[in-house]
């Protein structure tokens, strides 16, 4: 419930504030968003497994987001599309975690 409230407030803030993103930074923001989503889904999975640790979650969230942006920066400087590595890594984990969440959901249903 609380994360959902936070999400709604964040969306509302984004709509109200209308912060323009210069085209070169769209890529950075996208990667950061992907990292953040990955952390959030990971957190959801961990909480389903009852292994949720708020310190791990929060440090992971900020660490991954910043690291993702940093990797894009390095890639830009080196002239390599290094952000693809971040996209693949976060994407794979995102889907894995989603699959697990889905599995737990159906297992639970089955047991009921």
């Amino acid at each position: 419930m609380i994360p959902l409230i936070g999400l709604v407030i964040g969306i509302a803030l984004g709509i109200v504030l209308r912060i323009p993103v210069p085209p070169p930074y769209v890529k950075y923001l996208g990667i950061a968003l992907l990292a953040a989503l990955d952390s959030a889904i990971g957190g959801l999975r961990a909480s389903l497994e009852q292994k949720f640790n708020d310190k791990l979650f929060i440090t992971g969230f900020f660490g991954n987001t910043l690291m993702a942006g940093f990797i894009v920066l390095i890639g830009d400087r080196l002239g390599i599309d290094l952000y693809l590595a971040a996209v693949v890594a976060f994407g794979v984990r995102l889907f894995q975690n989603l699959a697990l969440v889905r599995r737990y959901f159906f297992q639970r249903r089955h047991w009921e």
Partner: protein
Amino acid sequence: MVKIAQVRLNPFELLKGQSRVSQLQIALIGLIIGFLLVTQFRGQQSASHALRAQTDEDLSEIIRNLNVETNALRAEAASLELQLFKARQAAVDARTVLGDATERLRSLEVLAGSTAVGGGGIEMTITDGDHLLRESDLVDVLHELRAAGAEAMSLNGYRLVASSGLRYEKGRSGGGAILLGSRRISAPYEIKAIGDRETLYQAIVMPGGARDALSSLEGVSFYVTKEEHLVLAPVAAAEETRPADSLGR
């Protein structure tokens, strides 16, 4: 696979066991995610929205217009380049014309005597102990030099130009004087001429020439030397700037 003893599925109860602080933190993270989502969507949309909104016809129209514009700009660049080339050409021509004009001005200045002239030439001194020489004798010598290609000449330090005149004036006591313009000049007459040294010298010393004619007179002696470097002063300024109407009458 992890064995799940107890799965809380109701999303509203997911964080039940967490402390208030960590719930707030998680809410903050939710807030950040939402904010990022909206901002990113907006940024992506504004980047591609403008083109995506167009139909295929519009897009091809835009491309056609851009092509036309590109061609026009290319044509403009070509014409500007041509203009630049023409301007450069004109500058070169102008420089040539200016060079020619400067050259001409210099030779005219030498002729008009408005500048000092330096160079090789001859210098001669004519003494006249008995006052026998007339202006015509000097004119003969000067004509001889002019014919031999003298570029500039002076008589007793006065520059000779096209308007210079020599005349003889009888004095009251019977004697006379030679006048150069309005100036009285007297022997020894010193003539300087700038030009080809050899030619000028030969013109003076040739048999039956000026030297022979003058030297035969009583009391007249004639010295001529070739000079490496002579400098002739310009015509005096006062003589140059006579009022124009005084010439007409």
